[in-house]
């Protein structure tokens, strides 16, 4: 479809000369008396519209339909012509609405029947119409600017609809010649101008209108090419409703419209709520909404515009959370906008409800081919795909890559999506450097930040399974932090320290691991590492992010005094517990080792066996958490050394710890641990020298 076709610019030229004040001689009864009050009263005499009124209201109806269906890029310029041309509006989009035109027409008022007919002419209007067609519209300007060196691709075509009362065929010929001549002249002018465009194609639609009952002095003539630039057609139409019908046909031709009649709409009247009747409403819309009917040879003949396609109202309404496969959506305009059935239907839709429409068929299955729905006060006819109803067999996502994984963080990603929903920013925003900020780019930036560390499955993460981490995780991804955010992050970290001290269990996944999973202190190591990964991913966002990391690093390291105490404690208690502990630990460690080799699996179900395979088969699946710390062990002590002063919290918690430790006997393993790891089988080492280096393998020899 071309944007700059003839329908981009329409100029209405309506005759405002004295003879247009003549009556159309079609009476309108306006005094409809209500039965029980009419006794003895004679209704007021019917009135009739003037030729002018008929012309204006028909052209307004043309514009109404056009604006309803094409609120943008289809523009109207309205000119009335008497002793001069009065241009009522411009091509700018702000001028393109009925209210503006109506107000301007009211200011012009009806033609003055007593004016001198000699100095009035439609020619003034036609000349002004050609002039205005040369003027560039904002859309043309925008396209030309955008295309730069290809600016000549932007076409300048238009249509002049002239409603007048011509005297004869030769008078019509004279009007055509005048337009032809004027185009020729103005194209010369436009060639030398930057803000004017030459007219490439102009369609002149001359409508001769005359009072009902008179003979027409002008004959109809179908479209004829007068020159490569100008085509012209002549319509001779009686005034009154005939003129309105003609313009209705023309608007459909000019804008490729088609008609759909919604039938069987169930309605009830306010006064008689118990009775109901079915109503029909006719709508106009772009003909592409009928694309399926036209192609399947439904047979709408060329040039016949009386045809309407009937679609049946479908009773179970659709809900708006269903996503229909829609191949097109076209704005509609009711043919009879103020009729009660029309406004009943449009109000129903404007209240946000949708209705499915089915093709009327005598037999066979229901075929739902369209849907009427409003979006923000505009009603659209949606075309639903209905071509093949055999159910196809698409593969399910669960059969494809990643389809067998069952612990995706679906809920968390749902939350992520809700946080990354879009909203319109209509007012332009500027960056610090003064350049225009594109909201959509901001949205992409945010997605980038929010996904810097985002494990996809539950067994890949600890921190995102912990409620306690939420206050930190939700703010750390932000571009900038407030003091309060930093405080909340610090609180979160202190809280975690506290949890560690209290030895609270962590939601570490045991999927894919055997035995009881990593030990508590190991779990905390994993958790701290992961938290550090998350925070580190954002330290370049701002200085405040940096501060969160500092706090984290300070807190996760053990205060030196405690280390000292542990070392001392280890030496003291070493000998007492050695043998007993060794036996116990040996049992544990043995079963751990066995299952690692897929041996000690007797007590396990088949499911877990399958999970074990995940680890074995897929290199990308989460590493068993117990592997990680081995790698990172070397780094940690360095970090500790580099740390600065001890925080108040850790001082305080140390105090409490010391106080508590007096109340019970500390577990030997913890006391002996270095970095929360206790070395096992030390007795073997002592006995056998260097052999038992690796995880007690030697012990089984």
């Amino acid at each position, binding site marked *: 479809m071309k944007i700059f076709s003839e329908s981009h610019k329409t100029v209405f030229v309506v005759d405002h000369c004295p003879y247009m004040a003549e009556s159309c001689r079609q009476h309108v009864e306006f005094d409809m008396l209500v039965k029980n009050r009419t006794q003895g009263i004679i209704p007021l005499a019917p009135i009739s519209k003037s030729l002018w009124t008929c012309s204006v209201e028909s052209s307004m109806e043309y514009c109404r339909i056009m604006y309803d269906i094409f609120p943008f890029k289809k523009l109207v310029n309205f000119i009335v012509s008497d002793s001069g041309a009065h241009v009522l509006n411009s091509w700018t989009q702000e001028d393109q609405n009925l209210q503006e035109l109506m107000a301007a027409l009211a200011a012009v008022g009806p033609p003055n029947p007593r004016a001198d007919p000699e100095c009035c002419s439609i020619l003034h209007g036609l000349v002004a119409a050609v002039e205005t067609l040369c003027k560039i519209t904002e859309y043309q300007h925008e396209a030309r600017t955008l295309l730069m060196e290809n600016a000549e691709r932007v076409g300048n075509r238009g249509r002049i609809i002239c409603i007048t009362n011509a005297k004869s065929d030769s008078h019509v010929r004279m009007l055509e010649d005048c337009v032809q001549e004027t185009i020729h002249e103005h194209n010369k002018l436009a060639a030398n101008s930057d803000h004017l465009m030459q007219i490439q194609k102009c369609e002149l639609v001359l409508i001769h209108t005359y009072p009902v009952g008179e003979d027409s002095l002008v004959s109809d003539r179908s479209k004829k090419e007068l020159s490569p630039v100008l085509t012209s057609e002549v319509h001779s139409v009686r005034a009154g409703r005939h003129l309105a019908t003609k313009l209705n046909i023309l608007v459909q031709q000019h804008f490729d419209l088609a008609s759909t009649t919604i039938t069987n709409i169930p309605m009830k009247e306010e006064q008689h709520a118990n009775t109901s009747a079915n109503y029909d409403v006719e709508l106009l819309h772009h003909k592409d909404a009928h694309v399926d009917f036209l192609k399947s040879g439904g047979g709408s003949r060329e040039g016949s515009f009386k045809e309407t396609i009937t679609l049946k109202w479908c*009773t179970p309404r659709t809900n708006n959370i269903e996503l229909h496969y829609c191949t097109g959506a076209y704005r509609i305009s009711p043919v009879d906008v103020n009729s009660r059935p029309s406004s009943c239907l449009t109000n129903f839709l404007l209240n946000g409800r949708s209705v499915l429409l089915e093709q009327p068929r005598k037999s066979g299955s229901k075929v739902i081919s369209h849907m009427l729905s409003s979006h923000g006060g505009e009603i659209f006819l949606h075309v639903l795909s209905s071509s*093949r109803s055999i159910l*196809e067999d698409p*593969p399910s996502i*669960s059969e494809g890559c990643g389809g067998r994984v069952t612990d995706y963080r679906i809920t968390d990603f749902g939350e992520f*999506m809700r946080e990354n929903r879009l*909203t319109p920013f209509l007012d332009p925003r500027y960056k610090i450097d003064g350049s225009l900020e594109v*909201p959509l780019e901001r949205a992409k930036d945010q997605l980038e930040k929010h996904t810097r560390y985002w494990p996809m499955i539950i067994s890949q993460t600890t921190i995102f399974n912990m409620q306690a981490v939420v206050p930190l995780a939700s703010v750390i991804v932000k571009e900038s932090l407030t003091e309060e955010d930093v405080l909340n992050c610090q609180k979160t970290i202190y809280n975690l320290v506290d949890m560690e001290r209290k030895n609270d269990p962590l939601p570490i996944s045991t999927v894919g691991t055997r035995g009881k999973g990593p030990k508590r202190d190991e779990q905390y190591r994993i958790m701290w590492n992961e938290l550090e990964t998350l925070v580190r991913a954002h330290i370049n966002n701002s200085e405040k992010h940096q501060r969160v990391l500092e706090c984290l690093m300070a807190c996760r390291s053990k205060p030196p005094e405690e280390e000292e105490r542990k070392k001392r404690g280890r030496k003291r208690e070493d000998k007492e517990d050695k043998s007993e502990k060794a036996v116990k630990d040996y049992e544990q460690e043995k079963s751990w080792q066995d299952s690692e080799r897929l041996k000690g699996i007797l007590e396990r179900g088949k499911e877990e066996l399958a999970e074990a395979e995940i680890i074995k088969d897929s290199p990308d699946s989460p590493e068993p958490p117990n592997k990680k710390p081995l790698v990172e062990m070397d780094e940690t002590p360095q970090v500790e050394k580099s740390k600065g002063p001890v925080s108040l919290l850790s001082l305080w918690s140390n105090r409490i710890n010391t106080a508590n430790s007096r109340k019970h006997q500390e577990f030997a393993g913890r006391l002996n641990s270095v970095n929360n790891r206790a070395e096992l089988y030390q007795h073997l080492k002592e006995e056998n020298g260097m052999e038992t280096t690796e995880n007690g393998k030697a012990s089984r020899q």
Partner: protein
Amino acid sequence: MKLYLRTGEGLPEADGKAKEQLSVCILIGNTGIIFIMPTVVVMDVSLSMTRPVSIEGSEEYQRKHLAAHGLTMLFEHMATNYKLEFTALVVFSSLWELMVPFTRDYNTLQEALSNMDDYDKTCLESALVGVCNIVQQEWGGAIPCQVVLVTDGCLGIGRGSLRHSLATQNQRSESNRFPLPFPFPSKLYIMCMANLEELQSTDSLECLERLIDLNNGEGQIFTIDGPLCLKNVQSMFGKLIDLAYTPFHAVLKCGHLTADVQVFPRPEPFVVDEEIDPIPKVINTDLEIVGFIDIADISSPPVLSRHLVLPIALNKEGDEVGTGITDDNEDENSANQIAGKIPNFCVLLHGSLKVEGMVAIVQLGPEWHGMLYSQADSKKKSNLMMSLFEPGPEPLPWLGKMAQLGPISDAKENPYGEDDNKSPFPLQPKNKRSYAQNVTVWIKPSGLQTDVQKILRNARKLPEKTQTFYKELNRLRKAALAFGFLDLLKGVADMLERECTLLPETAHPDAAFQLTHAAQQLKLASTGTSEYAAYDQNITPLHTDFSGSSTERI
């Protein structure tokens, strides 16, 4: 009097019924998932296809053998890369026959290839008519189809020959119109079992080119380079595969979360406006998610096409290992099982989109967007789908300009509300449409009569209805002034004066005052003098001393 939709919520008693009716289950046309670009293979089985091809030192081949060889190659390619494609096989001579209806079973197609008989002369037009019928019956007029015509370039003789068809092409009636252009979006690929020199020696090539032209230029002619042999046929079909049957691979991205995917069927290039921007737009191979929107907000948008987004596993060289869809082949099986167990972003995204009832907005290119969503079929199988919007800065009026959509965190307050109870969509247009703004249309007398009756009805309920009375009166006044219909103003003024005389004795004294005042104002306006006929000036109620009069509110 007002009308209410019977099924609507206008009247309370209608509610119960409407809800009961909602439980009725119906089959909507689009429940059958259509994401295919079917292929029709049209094979020439006329006698000329049995012409021998001389190949030195080997057994004798006929052209039809070469054709079958090429098609086998095509079918094999599709069986591996285009498992979801539907293909039909039509053979033709002077008659045509649908050998294999649309199927995904390439064995059946292969078998049919080896069971073809030889028939009489070539009659292309009837075969093309056959293709029209087959496709339209199966897919309607909206699904794009690829037609692969395999022929030797002998176009028949006499009536029914292509030359004859083309010569009479302009003298057709609606009932026997020439089948091209196909009445559905299509590509016509003509595979000639002949080399260029051979075709150029007659007017065959010209005629075939006319066919492509008639199909609005959609399609291409392939000829054999060099001597007719198996190898050269292979390379010809290789070119077709490269052109039309290469899988579209892309990377789906959401920030740092990514997945390799195949988009199926391949998205076609799209021309927005052949005059201003004649270069077809092609979608990016990086599909970048820019944000998310609720399904209720995106609201069944119109789309150009829709596609399955299948996660694929790529090996180190970047070759496709498989889509993970289970297959009979054992080697693939284990590879697929591994792929199935590696977490994939597509599966996560799909799951959350489905649970939350949302779509992801994805950028396809400069000023081109689409949406990703979960699509379920009736068997509760579901998959990740992508629909393409029309390229342009504002594909959906109710979302506004795509570039102006930004993250909610940039807004002063959450536009979705703290309890997720509101939405920034749909955007309201600046100007209301005629049906939403109570426009005045008097083309039919009933329109005018209704408006006059409204005034009259309110006139009889003065002073209670003073506000509505003046509102309706002013609406009529404005329209009459714009249409230059001053006689109407006079007529209505007369009517109001008469109403005044008909007031019952029990009427409120204010009623008479207001009626007289209104009539007088209308009469003044009907003179058309600028002082009284200003469009923007309204007739305001008369200030009276009657206590409790609603007029004081003005």
